């Protein structure tokens, strides 16, 4: 069950998207998120959805993996959709029973929001699936480099190092959680039945061992890093240099064009 979490993982391949500069991908992701949020109608949403699908296709990563990343988030999407259905009270009344009335605008809004979140998740997955964590954090570090002029250079490095390590340990900790859960089940722990309060209480015997082992791991990792001459990033030179190439400029151009289409579609329909 927990093994299905693919968030923050990298899948090697030799696609164009993989080879794009991490900085460009980061900036484009922000641009895409903005684009998704300024979509006002289904036509503009359709354009961005189509564009997202094309990008997914170009990553050469099996579509199955993208479904995996969506699967985890589906309960949240359904929850927000239902809230929308109940809270919006404009348009035509479609259904009315007991104290509940469902309006047509509620349904369209719910579908619109759900689609928007789905596209958002998919396009964000593209970034983590196609960029190695080191490239990603390196990209963030370089994008935030101007912050050193206000004395935050060290903070930027520390943050990017923390991100690298966090991403590296996600699969390890997931595996460990699985093991602890099995161990507690073997001792008779009941993790499935009961109401919400009971379920949360049942999580405690899993979280505490996980926390303790994480702290122990942190100590050992710190020692191992020290043995490899890590001294807080002073004088550190990255092996892989990020370089902008023609394909980077082309992809920026493409995204800006898509943004243009969206603005036009927003005003036309």
């Amino acid at each position, binding site marked *: 069950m927990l093994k299905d979490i693919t968030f923050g993982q990298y899948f090697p391949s030799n696609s164009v998207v993989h080879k794009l500069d991490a900085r460009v991908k980061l900036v484009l992701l922000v641009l895409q998120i903005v684009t998704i949020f300024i979509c006002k109608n289904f036509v503009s949403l359709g354009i961005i959805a189509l564009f997202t699908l094309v990008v997914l296709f170009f990553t050469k990563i099996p579509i199955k993996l993208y479904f995996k990343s969506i699967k985890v988030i589906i309960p949240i999407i359904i929850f927000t959709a239902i809230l929308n259905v109940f809270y919006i009270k404009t348009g035509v009344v479609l259904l009315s029973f007991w104290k509940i009335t469902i309006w047509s605008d509620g349904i369209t809004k719910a579908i619109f929001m759900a689609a928007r979140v789905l596209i958002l998740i998919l396009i964000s997955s593209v970034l983590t699936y196609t960029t190695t*964590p080191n490239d990603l954090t390196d990209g963030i570090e370089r994008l935030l480099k101007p912050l050193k002029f206000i004395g935050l250079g060290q903070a930027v490095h520390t943050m990017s190092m923390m991100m690298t390590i966090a991403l*590296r340990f996600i699969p390890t900790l997931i595996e460990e959680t699985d093991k602890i859960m099995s161990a507690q089940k073997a001792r008779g722990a009941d993790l499935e039945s009961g109401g919400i309060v009971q379920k949360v209480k049942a999580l405690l015997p899993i979280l505490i061992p996980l926390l303790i082992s994480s702290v122990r791991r942190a100590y*050992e990792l710190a*020692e191992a890093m020290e043995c*490899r001459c*890590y001294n807080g990033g002073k004088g550190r030179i990255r092996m892989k240099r990020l370089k902008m190439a023609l394909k980077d400029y082309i992809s920026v151009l493409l995204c800006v064009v898509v943004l243009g289409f969206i603005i036009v579609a927003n005003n036309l329909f």
Partner: protein
Amino acid sequence: MDSIIKFNNVTFEYESEENTSKVLENFSLEIERGTFNVILGHNGSGKSTLAKLTNGLIKAKSGEVLVNGMSTMDEEKEIDIKRTVGLVFQNPDNQIVSSIVEEDVAFGPENLGLSPEESRERVDNALKATEMYEFRDKPTHKLSGGQKQRVAIAGIIAMEPECIVLDEPTAMLDPRGRKEVLNTILKLNKEKNITIILITHFMEEAENAHRVIVMNDGKVTADGKPCQVFAQTDVIKEAGLDLPQTTDLLSKLKEKGFSVSGGIISADECVKEVSKLLDLEEI
């Protein structure tokens, strides 16, 4: 003797609120350059402490540890010492910094501030030396235990140390992973002439060593060539270690009055020795 690491009357103790326990007391040891050394001892014999003392990860309470003549107490020499002596730990998961094999191996060279071209070369060489080159762009969490440990070793080799200290590197691995790691270590010693200090409680791993050191209670209780050390069965048992099955068999035969030579570890030699006995019986 050209020694790379030298312990001079080192004392080390762990302090807690209730008591201080001395792990090492007036401990002296010299490790010769280019040799393959195995340190054997049960849990709590002070062998892990010894490992951490070799590159200044922890500092001696009194006495000194010298690496190529540099004292680990000298803070200016800290980086030089860590470049000379690399440490590999038990749990490979807790030593890997990055999610991708080659990026993890590059961590050391990057910290040293080497040029990207030189880092690249060192990473490629280190991965080839540990036979992990074909895995260079794979995610580290998809590897087996033995492969992860080899990545950890590659990460140390990429800093081109003169000496590698391995603290129970095979303890968490299955027999296959153990063999992979051990072969890698042997190869590094033979081909790159890197001094190896292998700390373990698996006696079998001492078979090919130049020198075996048995530790018990923070003291060296046996020291010498594998065959010399393994002939001292009582010292080994006292140190809380299990004799390799071959050595155990031969020493029991000896007790019963058969004339066999002691200190044999490898299965082949044991077979030879036993068949010699059987031939005699037949006559």
